[in-house]
């Protein structure tokens, strides 16, 4: 991957709203080159999407987030990937990681209520053939997400003019 692409990624990872024009200016590159590089990375799925980090607590929407540790028996000749696919295809599931250590998959999902999440785990996830056990943890509060601190930002106490 060329240097310009990596620089683009490091900027838009933190600010996906930046315009192509501004991006070209801050990186000292040509606008057309930056547009082309982004197009290429979207095509080859280096850039997989543009999402928004939302603090749902500030809205009236009720949500429950759960982190589930899943232990499985890997399947002969298919390893973990096939199983992961069976889990991540559920639209309820947000995140699936294969982990080292005490359990195999880390699955994160969001539901409207505790009951909705519980039903999904007990009826859909636990009943998958190769799943041997699950341990569910509910998220009580999000302090930081994707590198963004969610507590209200304090007012800057920096002096307005200094030498």
């Amino acid at each position: 991957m060329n240097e310009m692409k990596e620089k683009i990624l490091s900027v838009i990872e933190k600010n996906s709203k930046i315009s192509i024009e501004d991006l070209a200016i801050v990186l000292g590159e040509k606008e057309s080159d930056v547009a082309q590089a982004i197009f290429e990375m979207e095509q080859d799925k280096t850039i997989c999407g543009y999402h928004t980090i939302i603090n749902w607590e500030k809205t009236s929407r009720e949500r429950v987030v759960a982190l589930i540790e899943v232990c499985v028996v890997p399947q002969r000749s298919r390893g973990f990937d096939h199983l992961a696919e069976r889990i991540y295809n559920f639209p309820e599931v947000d995140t699936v990681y294969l982990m080292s250590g005490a359990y195999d998959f880390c699955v994160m999902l969001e539901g409207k209520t505790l009951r909705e999440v519980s039903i999904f785990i007990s009826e859909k996830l636990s009943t998958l053939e190769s799943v041997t056990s699950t341990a569910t943890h509910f998220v009580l509060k999000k302090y930081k997400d994707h590198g963004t601190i969610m507590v209200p930002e304090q007012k800057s106490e920096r002096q307005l003019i200094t030498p």
Partner: protein
Amino acid sequence: MRNPLCSKVQTIRPSGIRKFFDIVAEMHDKDVISLGVGEPDFDTPWHIRDEGIYSLEKGRTFYTSNAGLMELKEEIDRYLTRKCHVSYDPADEIMVTVGGSEAIDIAMRAMLDPGDEVIIPEPCYVSYLPCVVLADGVPVPLALKEENQFKLMPDQLEAAITPKTKLLVLPFPNNPTGSIMTKEDLAPIAEICIKHDIFVISDEIYSALTYGTEHTTIASFPGMWERTILINGFSKAYAMTGWRLGYACAPKVILEQMLKIHQFAIMCAPTTSQYAAVEALRNGDEDVEMMKESYNQRRRFLVHTFNKMGLDCFEPFGAFYVFPCIRGLGMSSDDFATELLKEEKVAVVPGTAFGDSGEGFLRISYAYSLEELKTATERIERFVNKVRKEKGL
């Protein structure tokens, strides 16, 4: 009652920055965007703060030795060897000070006899001139020119030297212009200093913030180490302004006299800050790179934006300031800054706050987020267009 004050102090003009600070503060307006700050917008990296907290938890609340923690002085030597290719003996050639500012002050006081002349290239940081006056020296301001990208030119320096010249202040990378002196720029300056037997106070507080080029210290030239007082610190590189920590490096014969003043005036730099600084030098290179990349992006944005709105702005390769020219608008820097603040609520510092040769320029700091810079420059552009329209330019 008699006058309680000494006449020397009374002759010193208050800083032009202070005047502007007061105007802004009096406005009490939340909508004011300030681009007038001379310190990083980043917080000190967490691992450095954590080390400061840890040192407090461990009860390290005592004085350190006058010159600073040996551990820190050793790290400073390693850092300078790694980054600037100069070495100092931590035992008697390095001292830790309360910011670079203290080092500037005590270097002047240790070196100047009444009447000794000090050449100060301007525009520059506000403290050199008063420090020279307080040390009974004679400041000799030297106006740097935009056509030379505000670099110190050898012929200019040569012309300013008299038999009384003792010191040259070399403030690069420069606040307020963002100008730097490359190795090639410094070579003839070094020659002149040696030829005329003058000493150099090299204020390199912004040395970590150069863009597309590596910083060179004049102390690394043959024959210059012996006649250079190298001043640096943690404020700009590691976003540690409030920790008040800097350092001076010089040959023992000079440093031991500086240390004497420091010992009586200050005792030692803050202990918590010194422990945090050890961590900064050991494990902070990546943080500096990250911050530098951010500054560089904003720098490109501002140079581009000012040139686009027709305010000529030479490309600065150091520090975190751009220095656009407003001469074409037929206003003084002071009037421009005052009007801009009133009309568009953007605070910038007039170039004249950094010496008379700053007339016609503004210091714009890019220690702000890109979003803030965008909003502020939109307002500046609106103001500039209005001025042009009114004056039929």
